């Protein structure tokens, strides 16, 4: 078995230590470890994190392989320091049967760059009318525990209630894309000062907040847990904070782009800034950062949403919603949370690895960096400064809002069960 010694890495940002990987597991963590028989990686004070886990990735396969495939998506994930991603169900066909989730799961196994845990649709065809066979997806080889109609909201209160109740039988969780459909008909961007000027259809904050309020109350009523996808407004933060204070079993995620970008960018009418939920205001951004720091928002999830060039190289209204995010997520979190003093690296590990794995009931990921644990690790050069160049992305798509922007930090190495998927910043 291969031995790898990572020498002088700041584990979770702490004092420099050596980490010895033997085969698929971490053999030893300490100082002055022997390099005998091991390949040595000089970490030189880089940050060592547990392999990142993304609870919200669109891999697009099957159906939209022109945007992304499981292979290209997992290569992008590895580049960004991820060792596991949850693949959203809005593929073509929709991942609403055991057959489709097993297909995605198998493609993940074959890719070898990171583990792929399929998410199952809550309702047949994401149509919000009839429950999909949630139990069959759970019992399949894919072992689905997270269910979501993401891209669409489970807006029918009865269907949502039943789904929340039903998945209790096997410890599942429903991840809600909170968007009241009637309030967002024709919505193109955040409703506010900027939408009024630009004449673009508004996506009001209340359309998200009202659904979250309903769903935390439903979760309380039926004693289930609920997860809120891509929370984007200050008001949503207040509702989740209140729900947690009441003991409701709710978790929430925020995307990197909602931690950094605002609707002011839409003034360019450049559809690279078109995303759902939309970019909000500075006030929302600050509330989201604070909530991520204080634990009201549990995790960062990318909502990595690849689209082909032609779907963004057009007028705003005709453009697709979404941004790629796997390869820039950690840098954005370093920029918005670490360098602002809101989070330390242990806090980043909690929000980008430990907690997402727990929410998704994913074993083998989000584990402590300690002897005997699986060697899923990410080494980060936090001193690095670089300008984002999408031409270098591993993703098949280039729809990043950060092109030309300087961001800190770079993943230099990623290890998936002891095997390097990224070495010196390049895919292995």
């Amino acid at each position, binding site marked *: 078995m291969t031995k790898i010694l990572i020498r002088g890495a700041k584990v979770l940002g702490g004092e420099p230590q050596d980490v010895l990987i033997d085969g698929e597991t971490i053999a030893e963590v300490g100082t002055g470890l022997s390099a005998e028989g091991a390949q040595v990686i000089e970490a030189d004070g880089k940050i060592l994190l547990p392999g990142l886990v993304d609870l919200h990735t669109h891999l697009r396969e099957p159906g939209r392989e022109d945007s992304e495939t499981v292979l290209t998506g997992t290569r992008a994930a590895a580049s960004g320091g991820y060792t596991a991603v949850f693949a959203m169900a809005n593929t073509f066909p929709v991942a609403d049967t055991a057959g489709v989730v097993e297909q995605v799961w198998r493609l993940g196994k074959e890719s070898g760059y990171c583990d792929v845990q399929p998410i199952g649709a809550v309702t047949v065809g994401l149509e919000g009318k009839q429950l999909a066979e949630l139990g069959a997806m759970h019992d399949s080889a894919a072992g689905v525990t997270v269910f979501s109609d993401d891209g669409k909201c489970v807006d029918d209160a009865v269907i949502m209630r039943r789904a929340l109740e039903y998945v209790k039988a096997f410890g599942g969780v429903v991840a809600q894309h909170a968007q009241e459909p009637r309030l967002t008909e024709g919505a*193109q961007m955040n*409703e*506010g*000062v*900027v*939408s*009024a*000027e*630009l*004449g*673009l*259809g*508004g996506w*009001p904050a209340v359309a998200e907040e009202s659904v979250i309020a309903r769903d935390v109350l439903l979760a309380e009523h039926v004693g289930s847990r609920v997860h809120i996808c891509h929370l984007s407004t200050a008001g949503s933060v207040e509702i989740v904070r209140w729900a947690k204070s009441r003991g409701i079993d709710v978790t929430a995620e925020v995307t990197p782009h909602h931690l950094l970008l605002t609707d002011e960018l839409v003034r*360019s*009418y*450049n559809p690279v800034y078109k995303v759902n939920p939309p970019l909000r205001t500075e006030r929302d951004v600050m509330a989201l950062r604070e909530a991520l720091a204080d634990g009201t928002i549990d995790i960062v999830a990318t909502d990595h949403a690849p689209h082909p060039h*032609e779907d963004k*190289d*057009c*007028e*705003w*209204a*005709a453009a697709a919603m979404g941004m790629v995010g796997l390869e820039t997520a950690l840098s954005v979190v370093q920029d918005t949370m670490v360098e602002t003093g809101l989070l330390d690296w242990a806090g980043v590990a909690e929000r980008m690895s430990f907690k997402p794995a727990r929410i998704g009931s994913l074993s083998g990921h989000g584990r402590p960096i300690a002897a005997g644990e699986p060697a899923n690790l990410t080494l980060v050069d936090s001193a690095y400064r670089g300008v984002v160049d999408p031409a270098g992305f591993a993703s098949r798509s280039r729809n990043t809002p950060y092109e030309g922007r300087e961001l800190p930090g770079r993943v230099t190495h990623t290890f998936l069960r002891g095997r390097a998927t990224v070495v010196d910043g390049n895919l292995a």
Partner: protein
Amino acid sequence: MQRHLISAADLTRDDAVLILDTAEEMARVADRPIKKLPTLRGRTVVNLFFEDSTRTRISFEAAAKRLSADVINFSAKGSSVSKGESLKDTALTLEAMGADAVVIRHHASGAPYRLANSGWIDGAVVNAGDGTHEHPTQALLDAFTMRRRLVGRDAGLGKDLSGRRITIVGDVLHSRVARSNVLLLHTLGAEVTLVAPPTLVPVGVESWPCEVSYDLDAVLPKSDAVMMLRVQRERMNAAFFPTEREYARRYGLDGDRMAKMPEHAVVMHPGPMNRGMEITAEVADSARCTAVEQVANGVSTRMAVLYLLLGGSEPAVTNNATARTEENK
């Protein structure tokens, strides 16, 4: 002036006054037996219309032709995407044909901005109305009409609309005319008040340089011009207001309401009018209503815009017209 005209906000006060003054010169051409200037001979103007709008298109067409430009009308009705050809490909086609200016009408807000700023074409872009965003030449022709009526045809030259009180009534939420007018009238020093039911005022309006009122009767006596916006009857199906009659009662302009306006005040409408909805026939056909005049002024104003964007520095109107301008000094 900037190279394109996308938003009324692109214009400074001096830009706007220059356009209005130039439009006055152009208007004089319309009084001649031969209504044509050689200014844009050999230049190509493309009218790229993704949305039906015969009025605006023929206005631009007449303007370009009176300046002797070659005019190509490109009607891409319906969604560009549903037709399978993107805005980009259409733009590249026009570029290959050598368009010096593209006048674009599009159902998507921001499409002219994208056309001007994506590197697809080199020519000047004129926004002829984009979605619910802006319609800057409409605002210019409205300002031209107001200046003529409120300040005077010759007395107005070089002047703006300082201190004039303009009221815009109706579906502000969906109106590109309202957005452009608020911006341009503010630039020209006017005080703008929007009047509409709260459902038809956009969230975020508080950042606009204007007042908002829900009470038409209270605003009318303090108005120098009242601009009635077209209100689509279908809006009531989306619960913006209960019924046509209720809308007309609360926000429509009829003879009784018009009588509350100061004597000198004018009624404006960008057309097409919904008689009986936002405006009664009595008002629409009265001498105070400038709707038909606005159409005529539209051609002069669009001539001025095309001339200033494309024509460069030589005088637009030579010999006798210039002489008249001299006389007026």
